[in-house]
């Protein structure tokens, strides 16, 4: 079937013979569309609970992304990694573990058909938690109904194949200028590798040793950028996971944390492991030498510009 629709290539690309994956945009594949980007806070009460409710009134649950804002400093007991603190740092995807922020299992972003929420349950009392959020004009659920927060017939719209552009369902558009396209910088994006040696505990020396390594990208943008980062370990090839995440041992102890954060200078990735030796039964976590490749995309979005 002959190609149809609109295609746009980046500079010096021939739009006719460039592969789809290398084009800037084509109506064949929907783009992620930023409808709203803003900074907000959750203020917790004396019990460490609080909720920020942000109406969107779409009638469907939109996809979203959240970055917590705070000061990054090394949290693990392992010393000698980095003694510095980094203010105005941004951390993605709570609830989760972190090597640089206090572990954020108590922070819950979520959406429903009318609101976006960031809720804190059992967190630090009487504390203001800062975050930046993105709401996208793209579904986080199966939905085919009308959009309930009003229609916008102004601007440029590209519908998906077989969809009527006049139906005014923004989530059916490949792109609509109601939203800002989420675009990445291929020059700034890339990958880096980190390695950790073998690690095991010993009752004679240290039953619960730790090891850690970090790497960073000096992005040169002068602002903290929206980014997505994924990692692949040599020990489990062919699988990419998104940062940030952790691993548990058989006793539900956190024994590995892979995380990242960014500020106006860098995106830092870190990898921490612990070998826990449990006295009864005499089992322990041990770690083989391993290498990790981090792959990241940096977007033209300034997290501090809200």
């Amino acid at each position, binding site marked *: 079937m002959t190609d149809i629709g609109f295609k*746009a*290539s*980046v*500079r010096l690309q021939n739009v006719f013979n460039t592969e789809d*994956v290398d*084009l*800037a*945009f*084509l109506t064949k*594949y*929907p*783009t*992620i569309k930023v409808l709203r980007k803003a900074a907000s806070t959750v203020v917790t009460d004396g019990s460490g*609970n609080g909720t920020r409710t*942000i*109406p*969107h*009134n779409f009638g469907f*649950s939109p*996809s979203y*992304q*959240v970055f917590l804002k705070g000061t990054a400093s090394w949290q693990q007991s392992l010393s000698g990694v980095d003694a510095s603190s980094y203010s105005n740092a941004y951390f993605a995807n709570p*609830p989760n*573990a972190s090597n640089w922020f206090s572990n954020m*299992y108590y922070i*819950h972003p979520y959406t*429903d058909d009318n609101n976006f929420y960031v*809720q804190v*349950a*059992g967190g630090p009392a009487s504390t203001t938690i800062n975050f930046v959020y993105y709401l996208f004009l793209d*579904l*986080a*659920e*199966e939905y085919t109904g009308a959009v309930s*927060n009003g229609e916008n017939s*102004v601007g*440029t719209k590209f519908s998906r194949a077989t969809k009527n552009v006049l139906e005014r369902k923004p989530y059916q558009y490949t*792109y609509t*200028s109601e939203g*800002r*396209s*989420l*675009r*990445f910088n*291929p020059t700034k*994006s890339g*990958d880096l590798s980190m390695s950790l040696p073998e690690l095991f505990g010993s009752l004679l020396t240290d039953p619960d040793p730790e090891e850690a390594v970090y790497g960073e990208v000096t992005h040169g943008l002068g602002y903290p950028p929206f980014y*997505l980062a*994924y990692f692949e370990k040599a020990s489990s090839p*062919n*699988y*990419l*996971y998104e940062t940030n995440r952790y691993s*548990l041992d058989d006793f*539900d102890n*956190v024994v590995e944390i892979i995380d990242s954060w960014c500020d106006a200078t860098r995106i830092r990735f870190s990898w921490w492991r612990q070998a826990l030796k449990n006295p009864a039964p005499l089992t322990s976590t041990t770690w083989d030498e391993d290498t990790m490749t981090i*792959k990241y*995309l940096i977007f*033209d979005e*300034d997290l501090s510009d809200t």
Partner: protein
Amino acid sequence: MANEYDFIIEDDDHMWETFTSQDGAVYIGNKSGTGVNGAFLFKNVNIPQGTVVVSADIRFYIGSQGGGSGSLKYAVYGIDEDNTATFGSDPTGRTKTSAVDNRSTALTPNGTYFGIEVIDQMNEILARGGWVSGNRMGFILLNDSSPNDVYAFNANVGYETNSYLQVLTEARPDFTPSPTTEAAPASPTDGQDYGLKIAPDGVGVLSAPDGDLQFITTRPTLKAQFFGLTSVTASVLKQVAHTLGYQGAFLVYTKGNTYRFRLPRFLNGATDPVGGGVQGDARISTSNLEILQNANGEAYYYIFIDEITT
């Protein structure tokens, strides 16, 4: 030849707001729980009686706005009078045009404009037998259940930029030339604008930095080739096949109770206030997106054709 006019708010008594009930500014929306209305008056509207305008927009300059969330909702009317008086008192009760538009507008940042189309309202006033070129023309904005603390504000005093009325009285002629054949131009040098750009309302497409534009083709967008809903069984690895042959970027959202949560989601024993404790992770190989979570449910996923490599 197309006729194009701009009419600018000039004097304090050509703006009205009902929050403090005085001239010199316009509020529209909901200010801290109180609905607020406004009105604009343009003088010396030099358009002959009986003219049918093809384009008319009030360009509302956002000097400040509320901190609430959601779209501004309002109704816009014309003041149905031949030569409406200046705003020494609240004009929002004056006779209104039958032409009315109900709007829902997502406000752009302070210092930008948003447009309020008033074609029908203006044409109704211009059609009045008593209308004379050079008269004063007014418009009323009434709040229509805007969310709490969602409002826009423009004042005539203390701001360098005013709202204004922009009118086009004739359609532009089509000067599209006949097709010709030309040699391909030389590659653009650095610093020259190229590609397709789309600016939001009120932003100059040629002057705004790329980060303020809604769409540009000088940077690639994330392109979703595979997306949709899949069911997930607790502790069973769900595989969603793709045909990329490499590992594309991905996003996954899972359902917990009536809410949607971004994956990965790890609680490590912490209380989940709303999601029923759903936790999960996702990974991608060269042939499958794989989702694993601790509860039955469903996940909405995006797999992008954009490969994450150098």
